[in-house]
């Protein structure tokens, strides 16, 4: 294992303490229990938007804490869900009296820990709603499975819900906007390498030099199938086709496109992917109204990328364009 770390047992804490020092105007970090809140929390009368999940996906979620996006983020250990006591402490720190929105990626641990926290909030009389993100088309969706994983769409949902909450929308309004995002967004990813969890010290899976793993999640877990390494265009075609066919994205529709790096892929390659994605959208008469290209939802140093398309209307575009000021997203 070759990593710039001091001690595998405290990588999350040391990274968070670096974040706190880097962005004191934007956020505060609390330890024991661990959470990140915006510097001006709590904001009276504003719906508090709270997200969380395992660490190792940086900048998600902590990098999205700040005006116009998240009020709080609850980072768990690497690839492990945060616990209810963390979520409750973060909720107490940002509750502005207008209710809480939990944005939860669909993983068994995340769902259960946030559910327990939500039950506790309800018992305490604090209104809370949960928005589940499950956009990964690689996973077969069924009532009898854990369902689709939450991946790249999470960033778009956090931005859009955060903007609406910042503008004073009610909890019901913010949830409705979030559901619209969840219903109209789809993603799929590919890995060129696995990644190494520091405490484990070796790759989570091994991939021969000439193969890729199609349909990966964001934890270095194996995907649905292996395929020979192909050109960037061929891989983009494969990922995009799965996404186009799933929703389906109609001719004439407008989308926000996210080409997301998994942590170990250069921006240059992401632009090569975006170039092909733009061609494919043109062929299908789909307009890419906005795009986001970079490392936003990562799996440590995994090489690979994911594509996310979100079909948008004027309302979603309005909230996407609203000002945001966080460590990782700013306009």
């Amino acid at each position, binding site marked *: 294992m070759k990593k710039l770390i001091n001690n595998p047992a405290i990588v999350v804490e040391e990274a968070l303490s670096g974040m706190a020092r880097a962005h004191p105007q934007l956020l505060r970090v609390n330890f024991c229990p661990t959470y990140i809140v915006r510097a001006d929390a709590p904001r009276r009368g504003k719906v508090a938007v709270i997200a969380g999940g395992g660490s190792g996906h940086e900048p998600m979620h902590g990098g999205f804490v700040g005006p116009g996006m998240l009020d709080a983020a609850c980072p768990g250990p690497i690839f*492990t869900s945060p616990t209810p*006591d963390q979520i409750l402490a973060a909720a107490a720190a940002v509750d502005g009296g207008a209710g809480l929105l939990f944005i939860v990626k669909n993983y068994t*641990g995340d769902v*259960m820990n946030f*559910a327990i926290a939500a039950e506790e909030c309800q018992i305490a009389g604090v209104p809370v709603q949960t928005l589940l993100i499950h956009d990964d088309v690689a996973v077969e969706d069924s009532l009898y*499975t854990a369902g689709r994983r939450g991946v790249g769409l999470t960033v778009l949902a956090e931005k859009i819900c955060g903007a609406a909450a910042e503008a004073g929308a009610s909890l019901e309004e913010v949830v409705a906007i979030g559901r619209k995002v969840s219903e109209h967004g789809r993603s799929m990813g590919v890995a060129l390498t696995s990644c190494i969890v520091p405490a*484990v010290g070796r790759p989570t899976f091994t991939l021969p030099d000439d193969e890729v793993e199609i349909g990966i999640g964001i934890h270095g*877990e194996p995907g649905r199938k292996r395929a020979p390494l192909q050109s960037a265009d061929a891989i983009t075609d494969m990922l995009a086709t799965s996404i186009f066919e799933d929703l389906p994205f109609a001719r004439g529709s407008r989308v926000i496109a996210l080409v997301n790096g998994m942590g170990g892929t250069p921006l240059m390659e992401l632009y090569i992917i975006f170039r092909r994605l733009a061609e494919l959208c043109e062929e299908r008469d789909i307009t890419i109204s906005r795009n986001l290209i970079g490392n936003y939802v990562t799996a440590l140093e995994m090489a690979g990328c994911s594509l996310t398309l979100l079909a948008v209307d004027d309302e979603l575009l309005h909230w996407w364009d609203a000002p945001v000021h966080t460590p990782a997203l700013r306009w």
Partner: protein
Amino acid sequence: MLKLDDIMTPTITIEIATMIAWMNRYADKISEHQALLTALDAAIGDADHGINMQRGFEEVRMRLAHEHVDDLGILFKGIGMTLLSKVGGASGPLYGTLFLRMGLVAAGKATLTPTEFASAVAAGVEGIRQRGSARPGDKTMVDALMPAIIALHQALDDGGALCEALQAAAAAAEAGMKATIPMQAYKGRASYLGPRSVGHQDPGATSAFLLIQSAAESLCAAEQINA
């Protein structure tokens, strides 16, 4: 209704000390099998089950060493809360829920009869089933726990002593655990592997079997001392 075993062996009650012995024995067993649990999880999950369970039950062990309670409801609730905050992942809420629900059944009691103990465990397992919405056959801890509960109740209803009943439950849990090997996972992270999850023993079912096995060992030891 008075159960036959209550009449025949009216002196058998389950004390707080026995429950603490159960938890300590389970913490030992988790440490002993940490590498196995982690290896099973590496095959179909994310390679942290042994590590997470060990962290959680070492905390439980520490808590029980320092805490003095005379109410089993408070004891179980404390265990559940510790697991919720220290285990993380999916196992934290599931094992946490098991003990929180046991605490609700045992609230206000300093001792339990065998039937009350069985009811408490059954309520805990029902909590796990609800929290994880897993059905038998989904390749989860439910596949070890449901047969264990059925065997436990059956043995007590047939007039068996608690020790024998728990041994039957442990045997049923072990069979349930082994039965997860050919199953395809429909819940949890293993489900993302689809058919590739077949052929691996479920790590959650394995830690669940160890829990029932620890109960049998601790309660049989207590019964011998009392007898």
